């Protein structure tokens, strides 16, 4: 029997011990959601173990108003929008950056925030606006790039500070009385930066088990086994499956960089509303790089789309197929909500990989 087969057998045995359940585990991170969907892990989990998909998809939780602001800026001939790929298709109130590009806006996909800086250097007559979305894995790199821009005295590089923190979102989910989450599969790469210790206060206060897992299906299966073991033993706390990359302390140097450039401010998450101290906002010393301030754009309050239940999906309260729009009117080609658009969105993953009962 391979190691993975042994974990699957163990999951079966633990599920029987925990029966009738149901046991509801949440994978917070979008990349976990996709990996689970792509490898069909739900097919091999026992009936009473449910995997809920959480809000760890940075594109999914970026509010309409931010996309609208980016599109407003994109319409200016002196602006170049630089963004990571998945942001391009997310629908704002009227349209997406992809459509804006088709209408003539200069929207460029980059792989690293440093590429955005390079575009700024090469086009001193244009203003580069980088949509700095992402969680703790990506923000240190964004922060370093902003520091470099300052050191070089660049006056044409700006960011829309849309980065977010994971632990406050986990708290917000657990605070919700209607939530029923028994344990968390914690994001692997965010944890490289923040360390497994970042989850201990949450695990302690709410009495939940947390396991930091890698992204390969075999690693996720092991992580689920570890969570069920903890539940069966009535334990709460944090354990690490992804030992190669994650330790308790994380990357202190990366966190120092974050701290120099950003502070944690109250921020809106699409679908979850305002979560205190959950957004990476620019410190006053770096205010000159804030795109919204520079161009004088106010974020409009977001409007919910009729029928769209992305919010409840992001909180793990309903499965995608329970949304009336899923597959009818809301598809990856014509996404109504962000969960469907992003490669890491829950609805997108379900639709692409699991929508037919096969």
């Amino acid at each position, binding site marked *: 029997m391979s190691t993975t087969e042994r974990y699957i057998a163990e999951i079966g045995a633990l599920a029987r011990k925990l029966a009738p359940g149901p046991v509801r585990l949440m994978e917070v991170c979008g990349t976990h959601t996709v990996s689970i969907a792509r490898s069909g892990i739900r097919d091999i989990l026992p009936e009473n173990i449910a995997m809920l998909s959480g809000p760890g998809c940075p594109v999914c939780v970026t509010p309409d108003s931010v996309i609208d602001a980016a599109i407003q800026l994109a319409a200016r001939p002196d602006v170049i929008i630089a963004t990571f790929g998945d942001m391009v298709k997310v629908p704002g109130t009227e349209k997406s950056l992809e459509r804006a590009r088709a209408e003539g806006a200069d929207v460029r996909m980059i792989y690293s925030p440093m590429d955005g800086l390079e575009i700024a250097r090469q086009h001193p007559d244009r203003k580069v606006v980088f949509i700095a979305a992402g969680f703790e894995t990506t923000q240190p790199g964004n922060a370093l790039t902003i520091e470099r821009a300052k050191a070089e005295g660049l006056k044409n590089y700006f960011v829309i500070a849309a980065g977010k923190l994971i632990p406050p979102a986990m708290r917000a989910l657990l605070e919700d009385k209607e939530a029923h989450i028994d344990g968390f599969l914690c994001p692997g790469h965010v944890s490289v930066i923040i360390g497994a210790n970042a989850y201990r206060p949450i695990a302690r206060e709410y009495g939940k088990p947390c396991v930091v897992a890698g992204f390969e299906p075999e690693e996720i299966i092991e992580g689920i086994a570890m969570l069920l073991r903890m539940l069966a033993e009535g334990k709460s706390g944090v354990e690490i499956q992804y030992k*190669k990359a994650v330790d308790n302390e994380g990357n202190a140097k990366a966190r120092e960089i974050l701290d120099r450039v950003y502070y944690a401010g109250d921020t809106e998450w699409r679908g979850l509303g305002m979560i205190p101290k959950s957004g990476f906002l620019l410190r006053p010393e770096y205010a000159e790089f804030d795109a919204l301030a520079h161009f004088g754009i106010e974020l409009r309050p977001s409007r919910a789309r009729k029928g769209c239940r992305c919010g409840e999906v992001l909180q793990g309260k309903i499965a995608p197929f329970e949304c009336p729009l899923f597959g009818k009117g809301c598809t990856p080609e014509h996404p109504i909500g962000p969960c469907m658009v992003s490669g890491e969105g829950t609805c997108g993953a379900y639709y692409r990989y699991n929508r037919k009962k096969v």
Partner: protein
Amino acid sequence: MCLAVPAKVIEITGNRGVVSVQGNNVKADFTMLNDVKVGDFVLIHAGFAIKKYDPEDAREILRIWDEIREKT
């Protein structure tokens, strides 16, 4: 969350350099790490190295890469 992949450091000057992701060479920034040397294995995300693997785990990664290569 994030597409981060293990890579081997093949060039380094100050905080910048080049890493190899199983034969694909990309530019990398090492500012977030201490004491990185050529031959080290790092985890790379969006052009930044965010973690240095310890030698035993690095060997394990290399072993997996070799296994994949042999299988194909």
